[in-house]
């Protein structure tokens, strides 16, 4: 979240450098930056568009804004508030994708509940948002591996695999997660990361099952595909469409379908090589 603090610093410096008149304006801008930080945090962590809009609207009213005009889509937030002294502030924030982190969404939700009951000073709000951004407890990388192994193994059993297939599936999922983490670090677009990971995973499975007769590749690949399928994107998007954010919902559904297509392309191309 370094960009947010940068924005705040610029605004802070501006308010320190100019006279008192601009200081008042800068306060409004600081408030907006705070709201947008919270919105960006939630959107990046995987909250629905409607939840982001609703949260910021509520907090805006809690800070005595007369009107809060917010428009959010999956990768952008545009916010205009009219304060009680009839001043108009506008800011727009482009939001990039990040890892899903539902604990952050839960904490942001909790924060907005508390803020709406009794608004705290702006500095404290800012501190608490930074606290959520930086100090939310994480499971860490090792746990991500363990989680993937558990899920992949469970799904292989789920789709009717025997215990040898389940073991291979767990081992392959380690390679899959390594692929995903590595492409995260290289900052590759998610859709290409998924395509490449699916390809590598299928190649590995086919290589292993070629040597081990007791294992068929079907349930192993199914188990690992489940780790790649964008279930969250689909669920949030459907909920977005119902709550009236049609544009954001359609964007999300389109994104989820493209990701499923990318999985198919990755797997099929690997299968064609080994056919």
């Amino acid at each position: 979240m370094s960009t947010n603090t940068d924005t705040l610093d610029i605004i802070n410096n501006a308010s320190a450098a100019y006279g008192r008149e601009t200081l008042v304006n800068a306060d409004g801008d600081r408030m907006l930056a705070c709201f947008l930080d919270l919105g960006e945090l939630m959107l990046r962590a995987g909250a629905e568009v409607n939840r982001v809009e609703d949260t910021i609207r509520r907090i805006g009213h809690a800070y005595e804004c007369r009107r809060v005009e917010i428009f959010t889509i999956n990768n952008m937030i545009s916010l205009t508030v009219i304060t009680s002294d009839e001043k108009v502030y506008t800011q727009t924030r482009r939001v990039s994708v990040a890892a899903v982190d539902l604990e952050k969404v839960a904490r942001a939700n909790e924060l907005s509940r508390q803020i709406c009951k009794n608004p705290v000073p702006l500095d404290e709000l800012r501190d608490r948002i930074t606290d959520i951004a930086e100090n939310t407890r994480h499971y860490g990388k090792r746990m991500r591996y363990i989680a993937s192994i558990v899920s992949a193994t469970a799904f292989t059993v789920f789709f009717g695999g025997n215990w040898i297939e389940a073991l291979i599936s767990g081992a392959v999922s380690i390679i899959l997660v390594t692929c995903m983490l590595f492409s995260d670090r290289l900052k590759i677009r998610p859709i290409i990361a998924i395509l490449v990971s699916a390809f590598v995973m299928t190649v590995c499975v086919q290589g292993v099952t070629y040597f081990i007769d007791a294992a068929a590749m079907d349930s192993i690949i199914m188990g690992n595909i489940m780790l790649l399928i964008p279930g969250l994107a689909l669920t949030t998007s459907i909920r977005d469409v119902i709550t009236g954010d049609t544009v954001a919902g359609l964007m999300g559904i389109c994104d989820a379908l493209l990701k499923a297509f990318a999985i198919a392309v990755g797997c099929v191309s690997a299968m064609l090589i080994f056919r």
Partner: protein
Amino acid sequence: MEYFVQIMAAIFSAIGFSLLFNIHGRKMIITAVGGAITWGAYLIVFTQTDNVFLACFIATMVIMAFAEIMARIAKTPVIILLVPMLVPMVPGGDLYRMMINLVMDDSDQVRFFGYKLVMEVGAIAFGIIVISTAMQLILKMHAHIKETRKVSKV
């Protein structure tokens, strides 16, 4: 026995996904229970009616209602509980079967599994829509009744 193994697998997959999505403590236990309920509901409806659409639809409705109720009890957003619990319903198996038949050049099977895939996704979407709409209606009515009572008291 086969069903028991599947339900156990659903529980573990829900736990695994709640770890992936960074869900902690009490909420993780709820999602584990939810995973079992999802697949249990699916299996019950599927074995009774032999209809995939109906099974997906009803299982999604059940889990959606469970998520809405538990979210209010645990005071947390619905989406957090819903996503890991829905994971066993996601039709990854049929996506794979469609792909493998695409490679095998069996167009009848591709069409069959493609159709099944669309139907399952449609059923899940439909289930989410029905319960969300019902929930919003209930909440709006509740607020409305509260409002009118206040007015009548004054």
